[in-house]
């Protein structure tokens, strides 16, 4: 106790004295990362951590931030446990005690939402790699910058994809069928689909919510068959995605395309369980390992060698976030939060190791949302090594040498 207080007292005094010079005295760029390190989303927090570390190691090894005299980046972590109140408390601590220059996080939208308010109050820039709830960048904050696409953009991109495919392959799509699990997720998608279908002049021939717990989906498949749509759009969990895919094949339903929304269709056991029946299915995801961007394969190989699993959408956005920050720091040439904020707002990152995403530039709009962000769309295809997911959209991220099958009539 005595020893401890003797050591801490001068330390406290020193830090108090240095308090006002704290920023100027820093010899690293301190990045506070609030992530779920334990609790239900811990694996996702770990993915984000591994990706940040890989990026920061690369940046530091390449000489740090040159405009700050080669200053290194330093990552400081805080565990949100996926709890909003924990995220808020940790943000306060990181800003006041750790004197971080920038914050990032928090994966769970429910944590990110209140935590960004803390950063806004202190004027500390907050980079959100992935937290998809629309409202995060709709609070009128000046210090929030989101890399990932918003929730509502997924449906928007499914429709842009449909339009692009029609233009590219000269096949007209008129009638759409919406079939979705009857929870929050499915219904949310369907509401946006209906609006988009109307705006784009499609006819909706079937709008069918079904219970995910269904043990027989042939009545739903019969409805699809009788409605005779050109394109079927789905939101499904895993068991029902398998059941639907097999039943659609059994009833020989002719469709120009099936467009799924991740979830069950992206489940690792999905393709194994349905086999050939999944062929030509389109699915939307944040990122896929085969995305045709320079450095994507190398980054994935390096990540896999280190962590034993492929880069995920969450990891890629966290990786990119570090390079967005580096780019901003170079241009800011200062650790002043306001200067960093200005630089972030003026971001137009088009190349560099971080740009392994499906779109071509990171640029933030007035609300701080990356206006180019978009998920990618894959097609399930057998290219000789069994079924795999092949990136096909956006067109410039398409796997080299692959021509999508559209219409995907079997």
């Amino acid at each position: 106790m005595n020893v401890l207080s003797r050591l801490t007292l001068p330390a406290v005094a020193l830090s108090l004295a240095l308090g006002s010079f704290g920023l100027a005295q820093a010899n690293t760029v301190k990045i506070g990362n609030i992530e779920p390190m334990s609790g239900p989303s811990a694996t996702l927090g770990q993915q984000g951590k591994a990706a940040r570390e890989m990026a920061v190691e690369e940046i530091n090894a390449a000489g740090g931030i040159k405009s700050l005299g080669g200053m290194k980046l330093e990552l400081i972590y805080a565990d949100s446990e996926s709890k909003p109140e924990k995220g808020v408390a940790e943000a306060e601590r990181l800003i006041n005690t750790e004197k971080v220059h920038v914050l990032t996080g928090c994966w769970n939208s429910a944590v990110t939402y209140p935590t960004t308010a803390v950063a806004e109050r202190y004027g500390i820039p907050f980079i959100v790699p992935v937290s998809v709830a629309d409202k995060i960048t709709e609070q009128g904050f000046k210090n929030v910058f989101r890399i990932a696409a918003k929730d509502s953009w997924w449906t928007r991109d499914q429709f842009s994809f449909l339009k692009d495919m029609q233009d590219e392959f000269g096949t007209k799509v008129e009638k759409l069928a919406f079939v979705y699990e009857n929870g929050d997720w499915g219904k949310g998608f369907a509401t946006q689909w209906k609006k988009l279908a109307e705006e784009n002049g499609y006819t909706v021939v079937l709008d069918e919510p079904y219970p995910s717990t269904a043990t027989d989906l042939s009545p739903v498949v019969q409805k699809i068959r009788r409605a005779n749509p050109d394109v079927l759009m789905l939101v499904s969990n895993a068991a029902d995605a398998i059941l639907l895919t097999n039943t659609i094949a059994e009833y020989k339903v002719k469709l120009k395309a099936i467009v799924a929304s991740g979830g069950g269709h992206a489940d690792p056991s999905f393709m194994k369980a349905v086999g050939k029946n999944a062929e030509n299915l389109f699915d939307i995801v944040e990122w896929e390992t085969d995305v045709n961007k320079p450095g994507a394969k190398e980054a994935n190989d390096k990540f896999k060698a280190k962590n034993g699993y492929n880069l995920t959408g969450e990891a890629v956005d966290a990786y990119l976030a570090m390079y967005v920050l580096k780019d901003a720091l170079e241009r800011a040439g200062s650790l002043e939060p306001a200067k960093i904020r200005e630089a972030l707002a003026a971001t137009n990152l088009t190349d560099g190791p971080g740009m392994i995403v499906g779109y071509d530039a990171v640029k933030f709009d007035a609300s701080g949302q990356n206006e180019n962000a978009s998920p990618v769309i894959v097609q399930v295809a057998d290219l000789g090594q069994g079924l795999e997911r092949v990136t096909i959209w956006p067109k410039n991220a398409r796997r080299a040498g692959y021509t999508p099958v559209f219409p995907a009539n079997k």
Partner: protein
Amino acid sequence: MLYVIEDMINGILMGSIYGLTAMGLTIIFGVLKVINFAHGSLLMVGMYAAYWAITLTGVHPYLALAIVIPVMFAFGYALQNIVIKPIFIAEKNVREPITVIIVTTGIWYILDNLTLLVFGPQYRSLTANPLQGQMFELGSMFVSAPKFYGFIIALVTAAAIHLFMQKTIMGRAIRATSMDREAASLMGINQYRIYNVAFGIGAATTGIAAVALIPFNNVFPTVGVLFDIKGFIIVVLGGLGSISGALLGGIIVGLIESVGPQFMTATWTEAIVYGLFLIVLFVKPSGLFGQKHDW
């Protein structure tokens, strides 16, 4: 019109399979007078047994019955003898052995989570089997072949159980125990042995249902839960303890599920099934085909 016929056929076929999944539940209840909450887990165990029997040996899916029936009978027999019997004995003087119900709930959780540990959360299905996606095409009508075979299996199973209960000594002993366990004991019937056998038969019947389902349904650790709730509704609809009631209750649920969605969304048909369940409970608690009986 053609649509309605097509949907009714699917409803009857799928419904009879639902009835088959619920048959084991009704047998066990009829004799032990206990709702077996682990019933869905028994179905899940049966599906895993069938899945592995078929994938490892490569036999035709229905040949797996030769393995699944004895395995499930032994499993049910052992489960009752080792886990449930001691509770029955401890609660010998209680009219309604509620604790047994709680024990079956425990068994449900243990089985589901053990499966999760051993086989992981993956969804599995028999991808290459001679029945996969096989359809009878009658003009523009489609009838699923594995569901049709499942319907036959359900009818044969129901008939076989009926004959067994009526004609064999063991069957008579089981019926005697289910009517009055005290009187049966006085006649020299070992009621715990009857419980073991009844539980074994219930589990074996559930195993048959699992084999009927496996050609067109996927297997995962919580698959039983989906059929569990349906099973309870079917058994109550048809009358607790009645084999033919289970079959008919299943067909009613199947018809609602299959024909209903053509007039409304699939979500609504689920609500109708539950609504019917409540109405039956209010109006005729003994079920549509069950007799009034003091359990």
